[in-house]
């Protein structure tokens, strides 16, 4: 192995992240090592090249645009003192009660896939399942947790779109679908979500055989929104492969 410091260590030194003995040792090394001085210089050139290529204003606007699609910070799922007992109750009650509205696309029909939106989170309201057929009003402070039966599917992505055409990625993994285990048992996605703002919000879960890029699903949602002329009640299935499950929520 080389005696030269690793690249990441040099990067950290350059941005001032190293302190104390570690920084002094590395700076001492640089005094005597032209090779590493050249490496540091190339890192500085990399930053300079970046700044020439992308201005701060462009960077800032792009990050702000991307930040709008960062999923809302999940709130903890509200299961009061009888947490475990309630969780067991969910598992027993949910399956026979829930008949999900499924919008299938493609030629293959998968059996056993479904999605459940459980609503709860305030002391004054009991937990319930969002209706697949009707508008589901939310009370202030209520949170939503998404459950699914993947059936034979292996990937899941969940988004929501509001009346302002803003699409939010609820569940995905770094720009793509979340990998899930096929099966007929109901599983719940981690944490719960509190939808901010007022008005309608349509939650869309797509179960698929191949991973989908979140950006593609978002674009499909925006296209469907435009086709529906901004009426979330009229929004039809998205033009993406897989099986879709829609729920329409009314925020307080």
């Amino acid at each position: 192995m080389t005696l030269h410091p690793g690249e990441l260590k040099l990067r950290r030194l350059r941005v001032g992240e190293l302190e104390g003995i570690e920084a002094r040792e590395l700076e001492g090394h640089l005094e005597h090592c032209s090779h590493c001085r050249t490496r540091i210089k190339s890192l500085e050139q990399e930053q300079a090249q970046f700044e020439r290529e992308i201005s701060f204003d462009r960077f800032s606007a792009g990050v702000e645009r991307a930040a709008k699609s960062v999923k809302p910070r999940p709130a903890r799922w509200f299961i009061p003192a009888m947490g475990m007992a309630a969780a067991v109750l969910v598992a027993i009650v949910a399956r026979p009660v829930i008949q999900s509205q499924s919008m299938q696309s493609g030629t293959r029909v998968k059996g056993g896939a479904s999605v459940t939106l459980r609503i709860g989170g305030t002391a004054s309201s009991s937990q319930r399942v969002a209706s697949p057929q009707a508008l589901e009003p939310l009370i202030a402070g209520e949170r939503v947790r998404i459950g699914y039966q993947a059936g034979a599917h292996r990937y899941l992505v969940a988004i929501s779109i509001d009346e302002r055409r803003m699409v939010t990625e609820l569940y995905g993994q770094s720009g793509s679908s979340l990998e899930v285990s096929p099966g007929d048992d109901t599983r719940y996605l981690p944490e719960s979500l509190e939808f901010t703002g007022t008005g309608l919000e349509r939650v869309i879960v797509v179960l698929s055989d191949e991973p989908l890029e979140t950006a593609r699903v978002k674009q499909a949602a925006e296209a469907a929104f435009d086709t529906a002329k901004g009426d979330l009640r009229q929004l039809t299935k998205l033009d993406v492969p897989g099986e879709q499950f829609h729920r329409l929520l009314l925020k307080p």
Partner: protein
Amino acid sequence: MIEGGRSFDRRAALHELYSKYGGSVYGRCHYLLKDRSRAEDAMQDVFAKAMSSYSDFRAEASPLTWLMKIATHHCLNVLRGERSWRKAFEGIQQAKAEAHHGPHVLEIREVVRNLLSRFDLETQAAAIHYHVDEMTLEEVAALLKRSVPTVRKRLQHFAKESGQEWK
């Protein structure tokens, strides 16, 4: 959606990210995605994540290491979701041949990049942090929250499959 307050100068925070970390993160995204436009999109996503929990980000022992980890993971997932992924790696054998026998020796980082599609996500991340970031086994293990033997095993697997001698 995004944290903010009177004491939080969002523009100043963005400028700090831009001037300190922009080149490193953009470089990582471009290295993996091989496309400036897509690299810029990916970089924006990474910094948006940092901004969405800025106080936590700043509290990281090494914000740069965190950003490089997130950028690597994000880009590997982007690549994983692409149908063109396999096609993009049709030149693997050629790359290997050039790296070991050909007149134009490729840098190790390019060999690593060209071989990634053969491995699972965690092995990909371990190989990049080890070979490209030149982190130690221990550092990679800590970053990926895995044991040193686990990371060593993954890197040995990567080396064996890619025809490298384990060092």
